[in-house]
């Protein structure tokens, strides 16, 4: 009798404890849930950036909002009857004087077309608009084109999955007249305790 009276009481207390426990740890002691994966690689939504320098040149002027003013190629070139293209930058006397050129043994006419400053010519004679300059670069730089097509060259911004991305154009990174990266000063010099003068860096004893 004594035992039968107490057993239900103990069971009730135990039950209450379990309920309280479950309420307090509903998502503990089990791996937290994963989010569903985003859509696959957004190859279709990848666009290629359109660099300004393919449609004009920068001037040293600025507009009323302080933005640099660019001039379209036609602004100057329409004023003059087209002349034969020079073979090297040394022969430039009116347009683009002082242009630096270090891109193999090419001459101006290897890429540019007389009188059509917005057009380029491939080695097989096909004309391509300036904005499609990548086709022109691709003629010689096959491995880079292959890597670019597979996302392993050129860099990008945006999403690797589930969203849009913007790929860089060849001339975003490479000056077509001097395509090699030019030496520049690195940014953000490290100042942690391993490199700073004793007593000044991160973690120095003070």
């Amino acid at each position, binding site marked *: 009798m004594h035992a039968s009276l107490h057993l239900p009481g103990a069971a009730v207390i135990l039950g209450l404890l379990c309920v309280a426990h479950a309420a307090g740890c509903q998502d503990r002691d089990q791996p937290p*849930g994963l989010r569903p994966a985003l859509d*696959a690689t957004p190859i279709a939504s990848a666009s290629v950036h359109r660099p300004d320098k393919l449609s004009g040149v920068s001037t040293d002027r600025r507009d009323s909002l302080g933005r640099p003013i660019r001039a379209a190629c036609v602004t100057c070139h329409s004023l003059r009857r087209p002349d034969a293209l020079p073979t090297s930058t040394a022969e430039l006397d009116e347009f683009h004087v002082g242009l630096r050129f270090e891109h193999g043994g090419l001459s101006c006419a290897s890429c540019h077309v007389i009188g059509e400053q917005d057009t380029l010519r491939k080695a097989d004679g096909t004309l391509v608009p300036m904005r499609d300059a990548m086709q022109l670069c691709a003629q010689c730089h096959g*491995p880079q084109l292959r890597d670019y097509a597979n996302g392993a060259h050129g860099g990008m911004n945006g999403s690797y999955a589930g969203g849009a991305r913007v790929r860089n154009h060849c001339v975003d990174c490479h000056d077509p007249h001097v395509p090699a990266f030019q030496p520049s000063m690195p940014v953000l010099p490290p100042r942690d305790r391993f490199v700073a003068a004793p007593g000044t860096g991160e973690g120095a004893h003070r």
Partner: protein
Amino acid sequence: MTQTTRRVALKVLGATLGASAFAHAMEPLRAWSKDLSLDQFLQRHYKELTSEELAEGIRRLERETREEYGREVTIRDIRPQEGVQFGYALSLSVCIGCRKCAEACHVENNHDRRTNNSYIRVLEMDQGSFDMEKGDATYEHAVPAKGKYYMPVQCQQCDNAPCVKVCPVQATWKEPDGIVAVDYNWCIGCRYCEAACPYHARRFNWTKPEVPAGEINPDQGYLSNRIRPQGVVEKCTFCLHRTREGRMPACLEACPTGARVFGNLLDPKSEIRWVLENKRIFVLKEELGTRPRFFYFFDV
């Protein structure tokens, strides 16, 4: 009589010493309240928090950031995605050592401004040599320099991570998508992980991070770029607050040479898979058996 007096004197002396020792031992508790709230002290491990407790902790952290740094921030707990395993690759053929990646990391992850801290250390190496320990991270001259190549090193998100194994309190662990995460509120700052990491990828917050309010990145992840407290270890998380939502890591977007490739290793159409299948790749210190998720490759 004299004996009793001496006994009393010894008792009093002992009690005084004991009391002062106890007071001294409790001393940290008095300083503790200044930079550590009771809630924070009693907070459980990240993996044991219920969603309410986590939401409460996040609200508290957002409030503290507002009070201490003067900036409204949003801290989110972004869970890993199903069927996603992160991988990162870097082309040593095109990296020029400009440290733009380190700078982007510095800005994105709310690093201490005074120490120029960053999760990325770019090593300048002699061409032909391959000893990471001989790399120079402090070069200050125009890059790329003749006869040198550049190897950025950050957390390799090892599958067999020594840092995870040595942590005495399990404050660091491997997430389901491959990221090695740190619970900044559980870390005791013993720095065992920093010593265990063969890639020098972990950083210790010797001081409270100083970031001007205007420079704080308000888009913060609980396990990634929220401002870390003093005395805890931190590390690269592949920008999980960005990458778990499909965005690229900050260092990749900042790279002016396009040397970096990021993606889902389980997606056969991803760029990272193409690199792994078609390039000559290697991992740093392969012989240690850490099985990194970070790959270096060459253009051929």
